[in-house]
Every structure is written in C-alpha cells, then in structure tokens.
C-alpha cells in the first residue's frame, strides 16, 4: 500500500530550519527498512504557477491554487503494509521535521 506523506508548514508559525541532517538520517533509515519510494522538498509557494487550460486558451496565474497560511512544504511516498505502520513512521517524521504531517493513501 502506498501513502502520500505531506509535510505541512505554517507561515504564521514556521517550524525550525535546522532539520536537514535529521531528515537525511530518517530517510536513510526509511530506505534501509524498505519503506522509501520517493521524497522531495518543495520551493516556496511564491514559486508556484497555476495553469488552467479548460477554456479556450491556457491561463497562467502566479501563486499557489489556494492561499492559506498552511502550505505543502514537501512530500514522501512510502510503501507500508497498513495505516498503523504509516502512522508510526509519520509520528517519527513529524518530530524529525518539526512540522505537521498528513498521511493519505493512494487509490
């Protein structure tokens, strides 16, 4: 079962910025235990562009699709046997990143 694991940052209450070494160690452990599929951090939402080509011509707009103080800062994709395993890893991930984590299964 694959899970999308989203790292949620908060513009009003950002997490600490020195997490990279801890995250790297956590990632190595994920790989060693066979849970790792993919991971990536995202650039700031200021760098986002929304494209809408449902009309006559494509419309490009600057910024993210939804303006909110909480935003997606990065993602993992994990392969885990069930939600209990994913939640246990997510609890660890939240501590390691010092941020909220959303766990969502792929269809």
């Amino acid at each position: 079962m694959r899970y999308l694991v989203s790292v949620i940052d908060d513009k009003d209450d950002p997490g600490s910025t020195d997490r990279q070494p801890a995250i790297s160690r956590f990632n190595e452990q994920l790989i060693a235990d066979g849970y790792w599929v993919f991971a990536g951090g995202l650039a700031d939402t200021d760098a986002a562009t929304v494209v809408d080509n449902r009309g006559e011509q494509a419309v490009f707009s600057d910024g993210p699709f939804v303006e909110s103080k909480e935003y997606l800062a990065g993602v993992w994709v994990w392969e885990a046997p069930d939600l209990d395993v994913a939640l246990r890893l997510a609890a660890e991930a939240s501590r390691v990143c010092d941020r909220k984590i959303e766990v969502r299964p792929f269809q």
Partner: protein
Amino acid sequence: MSDVQEAVTRVHREEWARVVAALTRRFGDLDIAEEAAAEAFATAVERWPADGVPPNPGGWLTTTAARKAIDRIRRESRRDDKHKEAAMVYDDEPPEPVGAIDDDRLRLIFTCCHPALAAQTRVALTLRMVGGLTVPEIARAFLVADTALERRITRAKAKIKAARIPYRVPSAEDLPARVSGVLAVLYLVFNEGYLATGPGTDPVRHDLTAEAIRLTRLLRTLMPGDGEVAGLLALMLLTEARRTARVSAGGELVPLAEQDRGAWDAALIAEGHRLVRERLAAAAAGAAPGRYQILAAINAVHTSARDVRDTDWSQILALYDQLVRRDPSPIVALNRAVAVAELDGPQVALAAVDRLEGELAGYHAYHATRADLLRRLHRGHESRAAYDRAIELAGNTAETAYLTRRRDQLR
C-alpha cells in the same frame, strides 16, 4: 414475545459481534461482513419459527452469513479479483476454535476504535459493528439525524478500507494507548445511557448502559490482565447498581445522599467491590492505578456505606487527591470539592468551586454544585441564580426536574 423471537433477540445480542468479526477476518471488508451478518439474521427471523432454533445458532449464522457474503461478491463483478476468489475457495472451512473467535472480536473493537477515526465515529462504529445496534438506535442515543450518522459510518468504513486501517489488536507497545481509546468509547456510551440528554428521551437509557457493560465485560474476558479494563467495569457496575434508585417515580433525579440504599442492586455491588479489591491488591503490589480504577474505588466507598451518614468522606477525598494528580481536569476538581464540603464545610468548598468558573462556566454541574453550596450557606438569592443557570444548561429531564424543585424550595 414467542420463544423463537426471544431466542433470535438473545442470539443477536450474544453472537452478532462474533459473526461480524469472523466474516471480517475472512473477507477483509467491514461492509461485506456487516451486510452479510444482517442478511443472515433476517433469514433466521424468517426460518427459525418454522424450522426451530438450530442447536448451534452462532455456527448456523456464521455459515449462512458467509454464503450470503459469497453470493454478494459473485453478484458484484468488480469485486472478483484474486483475493476474493481465494476467499471463496475455502467455503467449508471448519469453525474456528473459540479462542481465535474471541480474538477476532477484540480485533474488531480495536479496528472500530482506531485513533485515525474521529472520536464520535468510533462510538457509532463500535455500537454498529460490535454491538449490533441499528443506525436509528444509535442516532437516537446521540441525538443526530439517521442520514448524518449513516454517512459517518459509511465514510468510516470507506476510510478503513482505503487507508488500510488494519483489522488487528495493536502491537504490545501501542496497546496501552489504544486500550484507553476503547475504554473512552465504552465509558461515553455508558454515560450517555446513564445521563441521557434530550427533552423526549428517557432520563436513563438502560439499553445503552447494558450495552456498555456487556462490551466492557467482553473486553475484560479478552484482556483479563488490564487494570483499567477491570477498573472501568467496576465503575460501571457500581454506577449501574444505583440506577433504579436514581430516578423517583415522578421522574425526578434522586441525588446519592437521598437514594433508597435498599433499592441498590446488591449483586452488581458485590461484583464491583470484588473487582475493586482485586485492583487494590494489585496497587499494593506496586501497580499504579489509572483513572477508572480510582473512580471505581470512589464508588466502592459510596456503595459500602449503608447510610449516607456512614460515608467515609476522608477516604473519598484521599482518592480524589490521587485522581487530581493523574487527571488535573476542572471536572475532577469540581467533584473533589463536593467531598471537601462534607469534610471542611460548604464555605471552603465554595471557594474551591469558584476558582473553576473560567473553565466550567458552560457546564451545568458547576452551577448545580454552586447552587447547592450557596443554599447550605443560606445565600438564597445567589443560589437561585445558580439553579437558574444549571437548569438552563442541563439536558437530562430528571435532573432538570430535580433542580427546578430545589430552586423553588428556596425562600
């Protein structure tokens, strides 16, 4: 009710969870398990009056339900993947030994009370899947619309499936945290039965208190070593023992001090006391008692006094002090103040209660307790105002009737 109808009702109460649990294990799908179990009980209602009740009703129901489930899977072509085919091959598997089935039910309880589900959903799902209550029954108990509850249960089952919430007893390291969630659900069900809310509702819903006790007993047989499970069962039994004495013939709440203690259920009290003694022995051996064990001990002290004047208030206060250290909630502090009033007088207790205003201003029991203390201090005007506020906030009809009479007795 005919003998057969009675048998169906009894078998439904005793076997529903077993049937659902066995089917969940076999088909890995709560939806299929529940619908097939419901169909099997419907078939029993149809057939048993003519054919007689089978010698092993639980086995008959599980077999019938399994056939219904397979029929349904066959009908729905989108489900005929390899996994389901495999499940169908073992059509005539021998019945599981009892131990494994009990373990199945425990798995079902933990699945319904999974922390990834919203707290209200856990209650509804447990009552539905483990208790076998119908959606209208649960909706009535918690004063929500049938459709909203149905949606909540459907959504929960979909999440269990899509997110793959496992059907299993959590691992040893997760167990204490997960058991406490299960106990919270059962205590909520019990309390809703014991102090039912809503103008059109019976003040005491015996169906809910009985169901909560039945499920807690089940948990107790499944986890005999867990002190908090024993504690919650004792707490429920000692509370339930006073049920009939708690509401007068006129439908008014009778407070503990005024209850006819001869009307208390001696068998339930004896069982509750036995469990409390067992936990006291464990505590003496070094096991730190949890919240439910302490609450049970407080109720054991109350139910040990043959007359309210014999109540050992200093022991009750000592237990509340122990509880405050574990659970420093304002509601615990409020209940502690009631014991303080008996030992140090209403003036001291009122000072303690007044300190809780910030947190409890919206809680009817805060105002009811204040009203009583102010009455004892002959501060009639303030007492009346506090009764007014308590009546406004109380949702239980018997309690409202009692508070109203108390208020109207004030000069």
